C-alpha cells in the first residue's frame, strides 16, 4: 500500500506553486522529482566525505571509495547482476548505449545487421546508425502495429545469422508499451545475436532481473528513478565487457602506462576513465534504497490504478485520442485532442500549473507512423494522485474551450 500523504511530503518540489497554481507534475517519463533523502545525501557527500576515489590512501578518499563501491553493490543486488564488476557507472542511458555501440564497431563487418525497434527513443537509434555508417552494417527495424506493440512475427522473420545485436527498449517512452523482452532476448540468442535493453523507462516502474532476462546489456538513467541527473548504469555480462574495447582512455582505466604500451584495468574500471560523478553514483544508491523501501510492487499497483483512472477520465473528453493502447503498458498516456495542436494545449495547461510533455518525445519515427506532429504525454509517478488527474482533465477542457 502507498501512503500518498507521507510520500508527497518527501518531495519538496511538489508543494511548489507554478504560475500561481499548485504544481501538477506529469512529466515523470522525462525526469522524476527528488525526495529530501536524495537531496540531503548529495549535500552530505560534499559536506562530509568529498575526495577523489580509488587512489588516495587518506581517510576521506577511503570513505568516498567505500561509499561509491557500496552503491555499486546495491545496484548489483537491485538488478540481480551476477558480479558487481558487471555494473558500470555512466552518465546516463545515452552514454551506456554509445559505449556499447562504439565497442561493437570492432566486431561488425559489411553485410552484418543491427536490429532496432520502431518504438525506440532517438538515443537508441542514432548511435546504431552511426555504428552502421562506420562499419557498413545494415540497420534493420522491427515494425510496430497500430496499438503500439512490436510485431513479433516480423521480428522472428527479420532475425538471422546476420543479426549481430538487437537493441530494444524495455518500455517505450512515447507510448508506455511494455515489450516482451524476455521472449525477444531468447529468440535473438538463438541466432547468436547479442541484446541490449534500454531500460530507461522501465526502472521507475519495476525491478529488472538481468539474470532472469538473460540480456547481454541493460542500460538506464539515475535521474528517472529519483536519483541525480548525470548518473546511469550500464550492466553488461562479464564475457561481453571483457570482449569490448575501452570507450574512453584516461586515468582510472589503466593498469600500467608507458609510452610504448598501456594495459587496461580490470572490470569495471576499464570503462570508467577519469574522475566519475562520485556524489551522483553514491546518491543513486540512496535513491534506489528509497524506492525499495516503498516497494516496487506497491509502486506498480498504485501507478496502474492511476493509469486506469487517467485513461478513463481523459477519454471522457470529446475528441481525445490515446496513442499506445496495448494491454501491457505503464503509467504513460500519450494523446491528442482533435483539431488542436498539442503545443497549444501544452502552453495553456502550463499556465494552469500542469507540466506535461508535448511534441515528438524524441521518437519521431513513432509520430511518423501515426502521421501526427506529436502528442501530449502525461506520465504518472507513485507520488501523483487522482485529484491531480482531475485537475489535468479540467485544464484540458479549459484549453479546448479557448482553442476551438
Amino acid at each position: 500500500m502507498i501512503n500518498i500523504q507521507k510520500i508527497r511530503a518527501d518531495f519538496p518540489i511538489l508543494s511548489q506553486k507554478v504560475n500561481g497554481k499548485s504544481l501538477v507534475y506529469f512529466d515523470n517519463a522525462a525526469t522524476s522529482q527528488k525526495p529530501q533523502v536524495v537531496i540531503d545525501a548529495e549535500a552530505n557527500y560534499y559536506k562530509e566525505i568529498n575526495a577523489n576515489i580509488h587512489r588516495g590512501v587518506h581517510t576521506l578518499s577511503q570513505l568516498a571509495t567505500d561509499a561509491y563501491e557500496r552503491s555499486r553493490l546495491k545496484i548489483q543486488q537491485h538488478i540481480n547482476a551476477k558480479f558487481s564488476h558487471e555494473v558500470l557507472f555512466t552518465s546516463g542511458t545515452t552514454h551506456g548505449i554509445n559505449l556499447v555501440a562504439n565497442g561493437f564497431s570492432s566486431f561488425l563487418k559489411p553485410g552484418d545487421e543491427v536490429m532496432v525497434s520502431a518504438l525506440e527513443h532517438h538515443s537508441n537509434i542514432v548511435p546504431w546508425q552511426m555504428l552502421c555508417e562506420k562499419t557498413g552494417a545494415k540497420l534493420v527495424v522491427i515494425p510496430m502495429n497500430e496499438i503500439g506493440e512490436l510485431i513479433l512475427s516480423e521480428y522472428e522473420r527479420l532475425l538471422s545469422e546476420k543479426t549481430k545485436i538487437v537493441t530494444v527498449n524495455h518500455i517505450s517512452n512515447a507510448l508506455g508499451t511494455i515489450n516482451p523482452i524476455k521472449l525477444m532476448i531468447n529468440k535473438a540468442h538463438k541466432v547468436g545475436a547479442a541484446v541490449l535493453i534500454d531500460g530507461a523507462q522501465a526502472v521507475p516502474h519495476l525491478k529488472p532481473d538481468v539474470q532472469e532476462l538473460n540480456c547481454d546489456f541493460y542500460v538506464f538513467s539515475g535521474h528517472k528513478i529519483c536519483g541525480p541527473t548525470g548518473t546511469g548504469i550500464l550492466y553488461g555480462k562479464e564475457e561481453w565487457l571483457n570482449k569490448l574495447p575501452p570507450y574512453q582512455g584516461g586515468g582510472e582505466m589503466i593498469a600500467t602506462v608507458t609510452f610504448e604500451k598501456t594495459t587496461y584495468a580490470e572490470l569495471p574500471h576499464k570503462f570508467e576513465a577519469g574522475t566519475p560523478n562520485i556524489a551522483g553514483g553514491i546518491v543513486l544508491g540512496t535513491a534506489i534504497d528509497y524506492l525499495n523501501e516503498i516497494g516496487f510492487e506497491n509502486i506498480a499497483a498504485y501507478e496502474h490504478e492511476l493509469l486506469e483512472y487517467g485513461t478513463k477520465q481523459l477519454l471522457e473528453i470529446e475528441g481525445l485520442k490515446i496513442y499506445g493502447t496495448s494491454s501491457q503498458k505503464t503509467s504513460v498516456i500519450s494523446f491528442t485532442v482533435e483539431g488542436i495542436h498539442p503545443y497549444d494545449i501544452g502552453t495553456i495547461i502550463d499556465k494552469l500549473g500542469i507540466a506535461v510533455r508535448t511534441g515528438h518525445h524524441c521518437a519521431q519515427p513513432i509520430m511518423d507512423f501515426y502521421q501526427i506532429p506529436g502528442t501530449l504525454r502525461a506520465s504518472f509517478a507513485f507520488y501523483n494522485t487522482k485529484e491531480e488527474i482531475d485537475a489535468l482533465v479540467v485544464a484540458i477542457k479549459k484549453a479546448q474551450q479557448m482553442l476551438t
Partner: protein
Amino acid sequence: MTIKEIQTEIVDEFSMFDDWMQRYEYIIELGKTLPLIDEKFKTEENIIKGCQSKVWLQGEENNGKIAFTADSDAILTKGIIAILIRAFSNQKPSDILEANTDFIDEIGLKEHLSPTRANGLVSMIKQIKMYALAFEAKN
C-alpha cells in the same frame, strides 16, 4: 505607421487585459487576422526551424518594402507570428533591421522570448530580419 508606432499600438491593446487568459484569448483572435501564406509557399525551406509547431514564413518585396505572409498549424503560434507580422510587414528593410522587439516583453509574452522556448519566437524574429537583410543586400 512606423514599426515603433505599431508596436505601441499593440502594447496599448494588450494593456486592457488583467490576466494571462484574456491575453492568450486575444493572441488567438489576432491569429485570425494573419495574412496567410500562399499554399504553394508552404515548402520545407519556408519552415522556421526551432518551433515545436510548424511555422511557414514568406517575404516579398513591394515598392521597397517587405510584405510578409505566414501560417502555423498551432493556434497560439499563429497569433504570435500575426503580432510580429503586424509590426514588421510593409516596412522598409532598413527599418526592420533597426527595430527592437522589446514590445513582446511589454505585452506579457516575455517567457516566449527565451531562446530555448519551443515556440521559436526568437527564430521567427531572426527569420524576419534575415529577409530584411537579404532584400537590403540585393538593393
